[in-house]
């Protein structure tokens, strides 16, 4: 990979991530290795136990998808197929093969069934995540599930995980989340000093790097980026909303930023800005803080009420002053595919133009994808030109 992948100076961070993955596979230090799928799994517990850990969200290769397809019907999303395919002993991904234990909170039907298939490849603990995020009973129940999760992790490492260790990790991860928020905040500038691809790489780092390593590297970069001078260009600003954007699924953002020259300035999905929007409580019972904190984070569309997700999405589009939203969901996604009309209608009603794209990890549709994105940007550019014209006319007459 070359430096041209990123606009900001992200190569050192990219190298750290690659090195961490190699260490994970090579079992350096002999620590147990845990993996998890979903942004509703608190890494605080894994880190408190001293595990090596990573979110498993590598996907984007059609070969891995077809590997997973041997175990599923065709109507599973390509991400869930990729998760199975990567764990499959034949073919598959060495990084996934290195996982000693998989933790997964039951999110959507596809991922739950995927986890049940994966159980034959790796020890797996499936935990429950309540849907009704605002009910007191959900919080109590989720807290008890997190305690099961802690006990399971303690058994894996062969020692207790104490409350104070967990509390310390909450504070540490809060620091990291805040820092990622600060990075994203820089994208509110009319000429953001980092691209959407840059930010996705920072998020990638969050899911692979130990937080202490991350903080050192990221703080330095943040200082540098915050001092970047505005060169005066005003790219079209886009928000990406919808399903997971896997580590390896970059074709849409590359198309937008590198071929067309627009910018993704914020993401309403679980592998972009969304998981960092919330800060957890740092005092009192750490398990109640985790339960509340993860239920209070900007919600996935699988949570109820859906209005919370719609409010967050429209609010974010406004906060970042976007010219348009690209709503992209994986084909057969049981959450974002099915609630697409609610999202499209709500965003449109709030006055933001939206382009709907259903996607997968094949490569044959790149031409159609390009046509749609280019045409959408022609529409947005036209609207922007109109606004400029109207403003200048008003200025003359006013």
């Amino acid at each position, binding site marked *: 990979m070359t430096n041209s992948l990123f606009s900001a100076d992200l190569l050192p961070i990219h190298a750290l991530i690659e090195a961490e993955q190699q260490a994970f596979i090579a079992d350096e230090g002999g620590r147990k290795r845990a993996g998890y799928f979903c942004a509703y799994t608190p890494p605080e517990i894994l880190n408190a136990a001293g595990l090596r850990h990573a979110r498993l969200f590598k996907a984007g290769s059609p070969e891995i998808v077809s590997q997973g397809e041997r175990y599923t019907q065709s109507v599973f999303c390509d991400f869930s197929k990729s998760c199975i395919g990567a764990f499959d002993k034949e073919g598959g991904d060495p990084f996934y093969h290195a996982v000693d234990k998989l933790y997964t909170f039951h999110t959507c039907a596809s991922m739950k069934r995927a986890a049940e298939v994966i159980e034959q490849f790796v020890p797996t603990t499936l935990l429950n995540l309540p849907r009704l995020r605002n009910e007191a009973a959900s919080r109590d129940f989720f807290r008890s599930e997190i305690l099961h999760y802690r006990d399971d992790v303690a058994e894996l490492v062969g020692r207790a995980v104490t409350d104070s260790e967990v509390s310390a990790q909450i504070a540490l991860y809060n620091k990291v989340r805040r820092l990622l928020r600060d990075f994203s905040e820089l994208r509110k500038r009319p000429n953001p000093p980092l691209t959407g691809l840059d930010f996705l790489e920072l998020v990638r780092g969050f899911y692979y790097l130990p937080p202490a390593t991350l903080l050192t590297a990221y703080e330095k970069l943040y200082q540098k980026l915050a001092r970047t001078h505005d060169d005066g260009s005003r790219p079209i600003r886009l928000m990406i909303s919808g399903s997971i954007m896997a580590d390896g699924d970059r074709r849409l953002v590359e198309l937008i930023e590198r071929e067309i020259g627009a910018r993704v300035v914020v993401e309403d999905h679980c592998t972009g800005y969304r998981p960092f929007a919330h800060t957890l409580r740092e005092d009192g019972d750490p398990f109640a803080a985790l339960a509340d904190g993860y239920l209070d984070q900007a919600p996935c569309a699988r949570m109820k009420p859906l209005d919370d997700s719609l409010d967050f999405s429209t609010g974010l589009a406004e906060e970042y002053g976007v010219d348009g939203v690209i709503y992209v969901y994986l084909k057969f996604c049981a959450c974002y595919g099915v609630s697409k009309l609610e999202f499209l209608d709500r965003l449109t009603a709030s006055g933001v133009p939206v382009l709907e*794209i259903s996607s997968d990890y094949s490569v044959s549709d790149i031409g159609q994808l390009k046509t749609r994105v280019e*045409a959408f940007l022609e529409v947005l550019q*036209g609207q922007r030109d109109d606004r400029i014209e109207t403003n200048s006319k008003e200025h003359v007459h006013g």
Partner: protein
Amino acid sequence: MKANDVFGDDLVATLPQITTIGVDIGSRQAKAALIGGGSVHTAITASGVDSQETADRLVNRLLRQAGVTRDDLGFVVGTGYGRIALSYEDVPTTIVTEISCHAMGAHALNRGTRTIIDIGGQDAKAIRVDPENGRVIEFIMNDKCAAGTGRFLERIAELLGYTLEELGERSLESGKKIDISSQCVVFAESEVISLKAKGERPQDIAAAIHLASARRVRNLVNRLGLDPEIVFCGGVSNNLGMKQALESLVGHPFTTPKLDMVYAGAVGAAVLAQRHYQAGHA
């Protein structure tokens, strides 16, 4: 054809006195339109492997038709799948997506256009157009699914022993309603084969295919609202069976401009080329 007849006096009055060409390289057919000297000329050919070569052929044909030379050309706009490959050293050129070009084309050819349904060789789309200026307000386009597109209808025509033109015409002779349940090209094909084996008449099967395809397109584009006036563009707009099926599902007759709407994208590109020239991009 005279530009005033095709576009109307009001639009022609806004155009600069210059010759421009729009080239629309589609997946199956390449189309081009020339505006200049008070006339509109069109040309069509099968899309070749080399988009630039196909485009050159069309441009030369149009120049000959119009009796002008390359030096008279003020601007070229390229569009369609093959648009990326287009470039000319001697003429200012720009690339615009077929979505914007179809919108401008349908607007130029029929001022009241609010909605376009465009079905080409490989895709189907609907575009909401601003009747003030021919600009795109919103659009929806199919993804990889080829149901209802030109390529699909070509395949079905082969199976039924029709030419592509016959497929649409013959379907209008249908006297029996058959239900085709499949939304998928591959399955629809096998459904057609078993219907044939059951002894169903090809006219009835053709009508059923058009209805199933039209339903698929209607479902795709429904979210746009489909306000009249609706214009049907793209290669499939010449298929009478598809037109009738779509009209009945949408519930509005389509407006038919004075030009074959397979040229909508090329004409729109040529109009946009006029605007670009005007704006001093030349």
